[in-house]
């Protein structure tokens, strides 16, 4: 393979779809604006846009060349500005082979190549035959790993069985629960609203409304609004249900000697490989709906590695019973200490927690109540926020073990984060005037995640504990003086899932 080759022409189409997906918000806005003007019909906008994207996709396909040169993969791309990318064997971290719907129709795969640098994350060949992908994979990987690794390729694309330590699946029941309690509900609602605003003129002009009004026995406006809202929410829920179902269907977590492989997706198959030494933190998130049901999801943060948005958050396991979390973490990350003594905020911090979560909400509710003369029931929201503040207080905790830190806190969902001490990029303690008066402080740490960082924070701990955390981060290994003393007042055992 020393001649330049083009990808399969299907790449043009998949590229166009990729562009649509990447710019969905912009496109929706444009459509929204476009549909306002009468002399330029809605369908023309969509058609024109699609053709335009196809042309871009085709141009990209025409100008994208790749070849294997010994052990170097050379990619030349760019429509106007030509970019030469040389990927050498010893710099490559991970090669991922995946296939979307379009690729699968033509029996093709997509090849993603990840290097240590952040800039070349885009190195990907969109559409390539499976045979060629395997060949590139073999050439780029073979000396690195033992020759047997890609010898026997199982039915799943690119996953060999040789050094798999453990395989975990998501049971159907869990998948269904995950889908029905999915948090992408709000996003679905906003997408629906946009679509509705598009087709609303069409509907209202038709006789459908009159028809509807005629069959529904005379109702008050409030009931009509209620029904509309209910239908909306039901649709949004269905949308998020199915999108989660399709995203996390066929979920497989494969634990290997040096890396974790996550593969998922029903129509659009995705596969992510995370080398162990890239993992920066794990956090377990228990959502508002999922927590009472006893479920949680597990995420991990990885460095220099992520999705298109540049965040390094990856779903390690979409849904798991709370009581099984530690078991699973033991399987996947045996070198993380899971249970340890921790500290919670002192009881004098409770009033700060409750005040902070209820005060703004109360003010807003009061103003709205006054101006819009709302129903008295609206005051249930501030009352609920008192409870929310108490929950936040109850869930806040900080702990550290031999080489690990644990941050537990709640925004809406309860999050428990494990961070290896050597992964901490910085540690910060804050004190505002009121906290200083009460001798409290907030602590925050950053870990690397994708291109940027991710922070974990616990509010209103005893000031001395904040200092002790700094000392714990400072030292290699925890000396006796930084250990949480036996007689500490606010001691609890974390994470407390069982």
């Amino acid at each position, binding site marked *: 393979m020393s001649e330049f080759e083009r990808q399969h022409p299907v790449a043009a189409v998949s590229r166009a779809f990729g562009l649509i997906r990447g710019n969905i918000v912009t496109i929706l806005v444009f459509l929204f604006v476009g549909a306002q003007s009468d002399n330029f019909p809605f369908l023309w906008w969509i058609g024109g846009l699609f053709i335009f994207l196809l042309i871009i996709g085709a141009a990209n396909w025409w100008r994208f060349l790749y070849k294997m040169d010994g052990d170097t993969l050379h990619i030349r791309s760019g429509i106007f500005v030509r970019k030469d990318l040389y990927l050498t064997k010893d710099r490559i971290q991970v090669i991922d082979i995946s296939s979307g719907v379009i690729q699968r129709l033509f029996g093709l795969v997509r090849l993603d190549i990840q290097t240590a640098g952040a800039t070349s994350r885009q190195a990907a060949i969109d559409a390539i035959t499976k045979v060629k992908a395997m060949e590139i994979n073999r050439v780029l990987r073979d000396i690195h790993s033992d020759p047997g690794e890609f010898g026997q390729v199982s039915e799943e694309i690119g996953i060999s069985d040789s050094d798999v330590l453990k395989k975990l699946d998501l049971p159907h029941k869990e998948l269904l629960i995950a889908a029905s309690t999915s948090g992408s509900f709000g996003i679905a609602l906003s997408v629906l609203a946009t679509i509705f605003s598009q087709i609303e003129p069409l509907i209202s002009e038709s006789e459908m409304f009159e028809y509807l009004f005629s069959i529904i026995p005379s109702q008050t406006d409030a009931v009509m609004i209620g029904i509309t809202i209910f239908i909306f929410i039901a649709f949004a829920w269905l949308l998020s249900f199915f999108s989660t179902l399709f995203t996390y269907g066929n979920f497989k977590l494969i634990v290997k000697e040096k890396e974790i492989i996550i593969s998922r997706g029903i129509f659009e198959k995705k596969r992510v490989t995370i080398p162990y*030494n*890239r993992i*920066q933190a794990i956090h377990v998130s228990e959502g508002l709906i999922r927590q009472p049901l006893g479920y949680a999801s597990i995420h991990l943060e990885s*460095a*220099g590695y992520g999705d298109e948005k540049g965040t390094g958050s990856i779903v390690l396991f979409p849904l798991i019973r709370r009581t099984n979390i530690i078991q699973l973490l033991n399987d996947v990350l045996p070198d993380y200490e899971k249970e340890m003594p921790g500290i919670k905020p002192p009881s004098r911090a409770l009033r700060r927690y409750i005040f902070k979560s209820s005060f703004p909400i109360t003010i807003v509710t009061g103003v709205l109540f006054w101006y819009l003369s709302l129903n008295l029931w609206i005051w249930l929201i501030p009352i609920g926020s008192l409870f929310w503040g108490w929950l936040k207080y109850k869930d806040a905790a900080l702990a550290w073990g031999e080489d690990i830190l644990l941050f537990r806190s709640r925004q809406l969902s309860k999050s428990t984060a494990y961070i290896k001490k*050597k*992964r*901490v*990029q*910085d*540690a*910060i*303690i*804050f*004190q*505002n*005037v009121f906290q*200083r008066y009460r001798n409290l402080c907030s602590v925050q740490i*950053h*870990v*690397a*995640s994708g291109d*940027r*960082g*991710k*922070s974990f924070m616990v509010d209103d701990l005893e000031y001395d504990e904040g200092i002790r955390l*700094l*000392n714990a*981060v*400072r030292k290699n290994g925890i000396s006796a003086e930084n250990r949480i003393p036996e007689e500490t007042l606010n001691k609890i055992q974390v994470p407390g899932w069982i």
Partner: protein
Amino acid sequence: MSKPSFHKLAPNVIKVWQWSNSISNLFFLAIPIAYAFFFGYSGLHLWFIIGSGLLVTVFWILSIAWIPFLSWKNWRYSINQKEIDLKHGILFKTRTLIPLSRVQHVDTRQGPLLRTYKLSSVTISTAATTHEIPGLDTILADRVRRQISTYARLAEDDV
């Protein structure tokens, strides 16, 4: 554990802050002006404009006459072979600890204002965040930068 030895910023940085505050906080005057533009100034609106105008002006004066001094008084930094320790903030006190093994790169920066007073700022980047020591003498800033990069190289390096 030896007590970390904290240093202060160059006193000239107060002047830099005074200048930059006097320019940047002038833009807050846009609030009453914009308000007057949208709602006119009759009756209650006038009182609001006067009130917010006064507030902005008082804040502007304080941000020149008082805040830079307090800010300087509260700024401390310390660098040793293991970590960088920064303390700052007036009402909202912040203490930041950056293990040196996490430092990815350090650079010194100098805008026109800082150059006038022969100062530089030192910027420390980790894989997640960026921190700044805002005003040191240029020579000292260079020394600090070199010191940090030497220490960082000595500290074990993995992400």
